[in-house]
């Protein structure tokens, strides 16, 4: 195979179909950007899950004096020392429990002051009004229900709260966004593939004189098809490179600068550059192989031996 000959054929073909080539490049770039973005979003969700699930607790809130008056769960009065001891020893017996920390009213008051110190509500609070609680870390965050059924409604327990439930709503939303991105990507991908098939056909038609002669003088099927396949692959690769650029620039402007989420939401651990960089080979490979395969199958019908 003479490389120079094939390369010059590719150049001629791409320039001849400039508008179609442009359409292919743009649609491949957009669909692969979405593909990469959805991969990154699911990375982000995984990393947030790892970060937060590690930190979340199941909290068993105990009744205080004011609850005893207002909350039906605490109708039997504030929690007693006996009840606290019983709850603690029951928790320690549970196999799903990893560790237990006790938070006193004073400690709760202090935490509250730290977080909401300036609000008018905080200044009217007293330590008496805070709840004592057991903060329980589970070996498996999914096993919340075990704790909930054991302690919900028990004397002295005001409520059992699972922080994971709150996070799950957020993750559900992010995963929904991810699915939506994937759906749009699939649509764009179909559009891109149809464009490629069409472009290759137009290209093959406009060069039917050459390919006819090639067939007659005994050029192999591969030699005849290679320029068309390479044409699609080159256009795809340009699109893929653009998609890589979009992802890198996108990460920069969303996380580091511009939107600068890393400053505004400093509680969230964002994906790093390595997460983006590891996706790029996959995107480039897809952008090269997918159009090449599409072209190959488009030609099989079109350029018979």
């Amino acid at each position: 195979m003479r490389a120079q000959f094939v390369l010059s054929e590719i150049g001629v073909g791409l320039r001849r179909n400039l508008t179609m080539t442009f359409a292919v490049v743009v649609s491949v770039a957009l669909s692969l950007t979405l593909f990469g973005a959805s991969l990154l979003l699911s990375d982000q969700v995984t990393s947030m899950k790892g970060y937060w699930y590690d930190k979340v607790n199941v909290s068993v809130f105990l009744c205080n004096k004011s609850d005893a008056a207002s909350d039906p769960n605490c109708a039997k009065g504030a929690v007693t020392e006996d009840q606290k001891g019983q709850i603690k020893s029951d928790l320690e017996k549970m196999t799903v429990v990893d560790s237990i920390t006790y938070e006193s009213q004073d400690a709760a008051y202090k935490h509250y002051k730290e977080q909401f110190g300036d609000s008018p509500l905080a200044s009217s609070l007293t330590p008496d009004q805070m709840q004592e609680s057991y903060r329980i870390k589970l070996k498996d965050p999914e096993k919340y229900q075990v704790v909930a059924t054991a302690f919900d409604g028990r004397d002295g327990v005001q409520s059992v709260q699972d922080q994971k439930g709150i996070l799950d709503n957020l993750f559900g939303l992010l995963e929904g966004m991810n699915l939506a991105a994937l759906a749009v990507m699939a649509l764009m991908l179909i559009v891109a593939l149809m464009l490629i098939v069409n472009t290759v056909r137009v290209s093959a038609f406009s060069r039917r004189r050459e390919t006819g002669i090639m067939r007659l003088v005994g050029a192999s099927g591969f030699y005849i098809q290679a320029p068309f396949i390479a044409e699609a692959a080159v256009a795809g690769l340009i699109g893929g490179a653009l998609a890589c650029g979009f992802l890198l620039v996108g990460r920069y402007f969303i996380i580091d600068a511009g939107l600068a989420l890393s400053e505004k939401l400093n509680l969230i651990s964002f994906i790093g550059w390595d997460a983006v960089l590891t996706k790029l080979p996959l995107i480039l490979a897809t952008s090269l192989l997918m159009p090449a395969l599409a072209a190959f199958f488009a030609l099989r019908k079109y350029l018979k031996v």
Partner: protein
Amino acid sequence: MIRFDNVSKAYPKQNRPALRDVSLEVEKGEFVFLVGSSGSGKSTFLRLILREERASHGQVHVLGKDLARVSNWKVPQVRRQLGTVFQDFRLLPNKTVAENVAFAQEVIGKSRGEIRKSVPQVLDLVGLGGKEDRRPGELSGGEQQRVAIARAFVNRPKLLICDEPTGNLDPQTSVGIMKLLDRINRTGTTVVMATHDQNIVDQMRKRVIELEKGRLVRDQARGVYGYQH
């Protein structure tokens, strides 16, 4: 070189087969005219040799190979040993004469050194020495056909298939083309030429095969055209 054994060819959606039970043999080094009115099956005959079509019945042997047994991906190997020339030249308008001829070698992967050697040689042979850098549009019909013949012959095929090579040319130019084909034939290349040109067939006195409605009706050594009789 070529052998047809009871070959029939029917196209889908056509009542009458294009070829019916044709058997014949062409030896190495022969020059054969293929005559017959339009629709007599000449083109189908040539397309079967080139393996652009497959026979519906019977066997087509070309260069000792049963074409029905040649798999699709090996067809190019067979075609490299054949040259083809058409009535409409089929040159690439944006390539020069030399590039048009070189194209036939480039696309089968010949080395550049080989191409540089054989292209001027074959252009000299067809009488186009000195016109390497012209484009087909700047040449007369006869010259264009010479380029096409040069392209068909540059890979030194054993068999040259010509489909009405003089169909678009005036009688004088046609004689020149026939002389060239005769010269190529004398180098040992078998030539099969479909034609409507009565004068040429009568002058050359070569073997004549006549088809009529898909049947072989005449196979005559040193024959004349004369199918209207």
